[in-house]
């Protein structure tokens, strides 16, 4: 898929499967991933937070080009994976068993 992310972010293309539009699906991908996969995504994306925000702030949120929209989805996924990588070393929050807490309404990006 050429040009799925803005041109300055080709280093993140291997992780473009994290460009997911909804929190529910982002979370589902997180808990079906290994820690190695979460770590690799985090290690690639975290150092580029500032670059990403600077790029996205050129646009109004309701008029994001498609590639910028995917980049924002990808960084929403970084929020989703940050806790497992930074603190728990496991994809699920400790002591949460099979509990589910599902998004039923969220603002579209």
């Amino acid at each position, binding site marked *: 898929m050429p040009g799925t992310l803005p041109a300055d972010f080709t280093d993140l293309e291997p992780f473009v499967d994290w460009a997911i539009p909804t*929190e529910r699906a982002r*979370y589902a991908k997180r808990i079906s991933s290994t820690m190695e996969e979460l770590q690799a995504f985090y290690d690639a994306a*975290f150092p580029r*937070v*500032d670059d*990403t*925000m600077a790029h*996205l*702030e050129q*646009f109004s*949120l309701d008029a*994001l080009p498609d590639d910028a929209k995917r980049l*924002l989805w990808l*960084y*929403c996924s*970084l*929020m*989703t994976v*940050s*806790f497992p990588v*930074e*603190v*728990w070393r496991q994809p*699920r*929050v*400790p*002591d*949460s*068993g*099979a*509990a*589910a*807490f*599902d*998004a*039923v*309404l*969220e*603002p579209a*990006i």
Partner: protein
Amino acid sequence: MPHFPKPAEGSWTEHYPDLGTGPISYADSTSPEVYERERDAIFSRTWLNVGRVEQLPKVGSYFTRELDAARTSIVVVRASKDEIRAFYNICRHRGNKLVWTDYPGEETSGTCRQFTCKYHGWRYNLNGACTFVQQESEFFGLDKNDYPLASVQADVWEGFIFVNLDPANTTPLRDYLGKFAKGIEGYPFHELTQVHKYRAEVGSNWKLFIDAFAEFYHAPILHAKQSVAEESRKLSDVGYEALAYELDGPHGMVSTWTGGGEPPDLNMVKPIERKVRSGLFGPWDAPDIVDELPPGLNPSGNKLWGLDSYLFFPNFMVLIWKENWVITYHYWPTSYNTHIFEGTCYFAPPKNARERVAQELAVVTFKEYALQDGNTLEATQTMLESRTHVTTFPLNDQEVLLRHLHKTAHRYVSEYEQQRPRTPATV
């Protein structure tokens, strides 16, 4: 030694002498019979928050609510620019559920000019009047005026839509909500239109989850693994004390400090929080939407204030954060040991991607805490139901709102049953 002053009586609990200080029973949370009585005495007669006005943006916008605890389903509709109405969700012909999509038990929403029953095509306008009867001449002297939708009391406070299923309950909504609601009137809830709503089916009695969110005594322990290690140790050594607790009739509130805003030492928080300037307590940079806080907030006037959390009995909590965002919780019982929990975060619309991502971090962090809380409740419920011969439980002063909640639920049941002498009151 308290870090924050307590009332002259020496404790928050003793400030309200009716509460007592002894251990309490949780028999009210493990009994199908008590739950049936709560359905009649509480959920069928108190004002219940069922949504917000933003869910009904134009005339004809509607949503349904499944109120299992009150054994019914309702439809809430914007009948005119200035009027929101609610009806029992039942067709007057032969009792079919009027508004539903695909699955009769699931809630739905949309916009319409009139309601049409799927079964025989009877139609009702937005005010509930029956406007069309299929093959009307086949009926026997039927007058459509005699068959309007059955109306439910509905009213709006600060954009929150409430219903009351008891036609005999004549207490106006504002009187019922009391001084806490009056004290926060004028808060710009209407500015917080960026909404993230979550829902969980929880395996516990509804009151147990309210208990979990009505005290922060658990926070440094249950959520220890949510903080960086050193911070976590400090939190559990210090424990938790609120700035203030207040009760008003059936309602209660806790006022507290938080870890909100930019932390004094950035090493206290995770790398992502430093980078995005957000976390469990919301984005650090508050949107400029509040000119002056309503007088009811921060009742102790403490400069450390960060959050006021209100429980409007029976099942509606509103959390107002210093950083100008809001959470609401709803607990909808589905049986004596199950309920549906809804947690909704409301933010000012983000002005750019940075603000959007900061809100996302707050929301997904909130979700992690709720997952731990919900799962722990199932552990509590199963043991309360087991035959351990442990029947009473001590509550401390930071758990004063729990003591009040269980006492209030019990009082509603007994007062209701005293008015109806044929029903035995045994608890």
